[in-house]
């Protein structure tokens, strides 16, 4: 087994990734295939992709093919991502409904009519293709659904425990889950929102807490972590937007007065504070977005970088160092999974609490 093959299997099986980089190089018959591009491998892992990579076998990637769904100017076009044959360089053309598609750097391009292949400009940007609106079931969407199924199984079976027992004593899975729910209720919702109003926001807070947490955890489990859901900015920005919407909708008169016409300060100060408060309204969810995205992605990048050292130095001698350090980081990451879910939830609760606070 050469180091290159080992590399493909290693990164696939042990940790995260897409090793088609190596595959593409081998397939193209590149003599210098031992040149390992850590940056590209890492970036490829932390970003989204159209197929769910499991591992490589004999230099060929084994993947779960996921549906590509495109909204083009001629309507909806769907096909399986396997039709690209793992190609990501824009050479494999898929023809559907008279339209031609190529995949380049995990983006599906629609070739302009009459063109046969993708043409790049000097900066490697495609010049003769457009990007249709891509609502494909990417690997992040796929993993998100896996996490949803896991959450439904866990919490519906927890609810069943209470339904079955007459005395409402938590047994089995409920004994494990109940303290977590009580924690969200007594240490997040109650102190941040207040005893009177917290009940209304409990379903939202519980759902984001466990949704983020389980996706963070799945991001650390080999094979499942082929996708990096909670480290994707689209995911975090969506959840932060939910918090912004809930905060704005439940904001009372007092909250809006503090934003637009701060009470208790002179008029020039009121005018000065208004834009700051308006910016603050949006900075809060933006900080939520970036915090979660950056923490999770950074963790993945560190571990992958440490592992890449083996292939950058091209020696097994560095392996103990890599493994030791990444083990250390992984343990920290396990803590981070819970902490980030907690921070996102407690800050959401805090913002909701600020919006619903009564005048004092």
């Amino acid at each position, binding site marked *: 087994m050469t180091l290159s093959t080992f590399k493909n299997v290693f990164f696939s099986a042990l940790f995260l990734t897409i090793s088609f980089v190596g595959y593409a190089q081998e397939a193209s018959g590149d003599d210098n295939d031992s040149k390992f591009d850590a940056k590209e491998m890492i970036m490829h892992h932390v970003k989204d992709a159209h197929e769910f990579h499991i591992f490589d076998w004999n230099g060929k990637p084994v993947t779960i093919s996921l549906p590509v769904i495109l909204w083009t100017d001629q309507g909806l076009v769907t096909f399986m991502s396997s039709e690209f044959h793992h190609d990501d360089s824009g050479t494999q053309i898929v023809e559907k409904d008279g339209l031609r598609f190529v995949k380049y750097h995990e983006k599906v391009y629609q070739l302009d009519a009459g063109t046969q292949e993708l043409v790049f400009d000097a900066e490697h940007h495609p010049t003769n293709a457009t990007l249709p609106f891509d609502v494909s079931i990417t690997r992040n969407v796929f993993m998100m659904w896996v996490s949803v199924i896991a959450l439904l199984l866990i*919490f*519906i079976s927890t609810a069943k425990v*209470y339904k079955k027992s007459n005395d409402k004593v938590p047994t089995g899975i409920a004994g494990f889950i109940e303290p977590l729910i009580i924690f969200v209720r007594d240490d997040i919702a109650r102190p941040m929102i207040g005893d009177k109003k917290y009940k209304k926001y409990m*379903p939202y807070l519980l759902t984001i807490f466990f949704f983020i947490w389980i996706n963070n955890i799945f991001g650390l489990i080999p094979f499942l972590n082929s996708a990096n859901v909670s480290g994707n900015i*689209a995911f975090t920005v*969506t959840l932060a937007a939910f918090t912004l919407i809930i905060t704005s909708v439940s904001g009372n008169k007092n909250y809006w007065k503090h934003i637009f016409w701060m009470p208790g300060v002179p008029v020039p100060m009121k005018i000065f504070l208004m834009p700051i408060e308006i910016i603050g309204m949006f900075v809060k969810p933006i900080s939520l977005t970036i915090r979660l995205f950056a923490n999770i992605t950074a963790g993945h990048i560190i571990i992958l970088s440490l592992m890449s050292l083996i292939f950058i130095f091209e020696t097994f001698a560095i392996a103990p160092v890599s493994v030791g350090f990444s083990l250390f980081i992984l343990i920290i990451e396990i803590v981070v999974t819970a902490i980030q879910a907690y921070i996102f939830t407690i800050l959401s609760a805090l913002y909701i609490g600020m919006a619903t606070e009564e005048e004092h």
Partner: protein
Amino acid sequence: MDLITPGLGLVFWTVITFLFLLIILKKYAWKPILGAVGDREDGIKKALASAENARKEMENLHADNERILKEARAEREALLKEARDIKVKLIDDAKSEAENQANKIIEQAQAAIESEKKAAMAELKNHVAELSIDIAEKVVRAELSSKDKQVQLVESMLGEAKLN
């Protein structure tokens, strides 16, 4: 730059997935779980409160018992004291009554004796008077049986009674 540009496709699916998850979990998980936990907590609170109440009631009951016992004791004391008082009073009353009665009887007796004595004295006087008259009669009769004697007497009497 791809890394920090949110993909709209993923945003779309995240919104749908999250809303789905939120609705399903709210209905089938959070509601029953939070309901059960809340019910149980209420139950525990109620049980604790009723235990506290029971404890207080016990205390009250105990205090009541103490109080009743005390009252009973006090009543007994009072009853005994009353009885003693009554006894003393009865004896005193009886004594004074008896004394009074005795005094009365003695007084009556004395009065009776006095009146008897007076009556006896009166009778005695009467008897003495009658006797004296009888005697005087007999003596006079005897004295005046002869003429000489009668003249003698008148003379002696006249001699005594000097006419001045």
